[in-house]
């Protein structure tokens, strides 16, 4: 049966296939430099700032010697009532903003999660705030909140001397609302992804099971979208915990300290007072807090995922 067309395959040509890069050279060429780069760009500053947090040193006087002070900075910060005040303010801000973003974002996602005309356009438009720079949003809303020429007061029928950003009691709400405006779309996007990932046949099954809309929402929609909502919460909590540019451009932390969240305080300490050592300690305390919060969330997330 052999027809003799296999001239190309003979015993003398084994193993010609292995051309291209071997795993080893890929490692040497790409992975090692990447790790080295990461080490330089991320790990070194991390260690350096840890070192600084145990020293008294000012970056505006770089030639002065760094004096070792042990955990003095940490002790000072944690014993300072002002720190805890800022902490509670930050916590309030995070709580209000995240809850608000969740309610608004998830609500809008529910409205959008159906067949409708121009859904794509509407979704894109709704996502615009998220794509802007926080600093720009801050400046932009600073104008909107202005009682003289902003649009907020006329819309809600408030007097033209109803100040928001200059009022210690309202400034936080103004900032929170702005943040919700900016980031609710993010929650919406994740919620939409979560909602559209719920198989349609589950809703059909629920319909067959004669479940009401509310019953279906509570027992199907909510539990199934929870993992993504949790991811949204993690992101927003961590982001809001670090929130800086938007608030800074809107209020600079004022009036007084009524919107002075951790990051603004840290900024002032590090780049206005140049108290580099202490601000490194402050940054480390924040880092530990952020890690702590995210660990709690991730643990919870894993628990949900296990089901």
């Amino acid at each position, binding site marked *: 049966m052999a*027809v003799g067309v*296999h001239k*190309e395959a003979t015993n003398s*040509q*084994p193993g*010609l*296939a292995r051309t291209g890069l071997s795993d080893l050279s890929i490692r040497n060429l790409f992975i090692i430099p990447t790790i080295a780069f990461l080490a330089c760009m991320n790990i070194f500053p991390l260690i350096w700032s840890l070192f600084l947090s145990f020293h008294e040193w000012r970056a505006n006087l770089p030639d002065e010697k760094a004096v070792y002070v042990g955990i003095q900075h940490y002790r000072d910060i944690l014993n300072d009532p002002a720190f805890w005040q800022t902490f509670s303010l930050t916590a309030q801000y995070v709580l209000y903003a995240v809850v608000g973003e969740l309610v608004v974002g998830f609500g809008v996602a529910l409205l959008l999660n159906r067949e409708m005309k121009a859904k794509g356009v509407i979704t894109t438009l709704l996502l615009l705030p998220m794509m802007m720079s926080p600093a720009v949003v801050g400046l932009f809303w600073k104008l909107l909140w202005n009682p003289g020429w902003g649009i907020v007061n006329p819309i809600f029928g408030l007097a033209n001397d109803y100040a928001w950003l200059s009022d210690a009691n309202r400034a936080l709400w103004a900032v929170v609302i702005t943040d919700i405006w900016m980031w609710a779309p993010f929650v919406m996007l994740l919620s939409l992804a979560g909602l559209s990932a719920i198989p349609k046949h589950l809703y059909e099954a629920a319909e067959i099971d004669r479940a009401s809309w509310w019953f279906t929402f509570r027992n199907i929609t909510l539990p199934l979208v929870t993992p993504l909502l949790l991811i949204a919460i993690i992101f927003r909590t961590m982001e809001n915990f670090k929130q800086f540019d938007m608030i800074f451009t809107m209020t600079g932390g004022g009036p007084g300290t009524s919107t002075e969240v951790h990051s603004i305080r840290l900024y002032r300490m590090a780049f206005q007072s140049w108290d580099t050592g202490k601000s490194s300690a402050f940054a480390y305390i924040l880092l530990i807090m952020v890690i702590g919060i995210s660990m709690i969330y991730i643990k919870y997330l894993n628990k949900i995922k296990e089901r």
Partner: protein
Amino acid sequence: MASITFENLTKKYDDLTAVNDLNLSVNDGEFYVMLGPTGAGKTTSLRCLSGLDKDYQGSVYIGNSNVTDWSPAHRDVAMVFQQYSLYPHLTVRENLEFPLKSKIRMVPQDEIERRVNYAAATLKIVDLLDRKTDKLSGGEMQRVSIGRAIVRKPKVFLMDEPLSSLDAKLREALRIELKRLQKELGATLIYVTHDQVEAMSMADRVGIIKEGQLIQSDTPHKVYNEPKNTFVAGFVGSPKINFFDGIVENGRLTIKGSPHQFQLESEILEKIRGITGELIIGVRPEDIFLTHEAQEGACEAKVYVIEHMGMENLISFHIDPYHFKAATDSAFEVNANDKIYFRFAQEKLHFFDKNSEENLV
């Protein structure tokens, strides 16, 4: 054309052993089917043979050449997959010509035409030659895929579930064609499937694979009638073989846990060479005889379900603690919960060891 030998082939993916010490020889010009459940390692063996999977232990021979270290291109095997993998932007003719146009083959144009025409005629796709492949039906696409394998005149054809995405009727038709084609080309063909009907109907020999190991390699007839163990017996045949625990004592077979007893015929006793005690007994549905009336040597049972299959009726009945399924003539009518009497075709009983589940005969 060439024979194929796997020698101690082992393939691991991380901590999963896909193929475990496989030894197997396929003769020149043989239609060999590897049959087994999903994940048994059939496809992996095929991929090792083609050279698509590397880093395996053991050796692979095609003809007399040890091709273990060869690249896929040099092994000169043709593969047909479940997914047709045709080039959608090319016509059928261009798809068929494609493997011949490669630089290393250097096939002259008139030879290309001759081979394409031959393949098209064999597969009855001559009138499709100038169509774009995305306009074809599933069956037509699979024919073109096979055609693309044929034109190369490879030493060996490898087919990985090529029919499984087609509907039943088409599958039956292509099954016959494929077998005819293989005989016509005299090609060595290794065919992988999880469908025992395909395996039985096409194969010269069937290799039954389980968890990366070859369990039995035999003609379809032998595999069906002399299964090596309960796995093979259970895997081959539809409706499935009935298993029950039986006790052989004093020339009698007792269905364990029930009062039912059968006197075993002397030839059978001879066949099992005096083995006694508890065994696993297998009996195929067509080897159970049912009657409405009580008969010598038959036991009573209650009908569970009747299935009218047209050609035959399948009757499930229950004798505590087992369900049996018997195939009867389509004229045999009963209703659920009716009383019936059954006996076994004793020469067709299969006896397996209780522990090793190996066939004792």
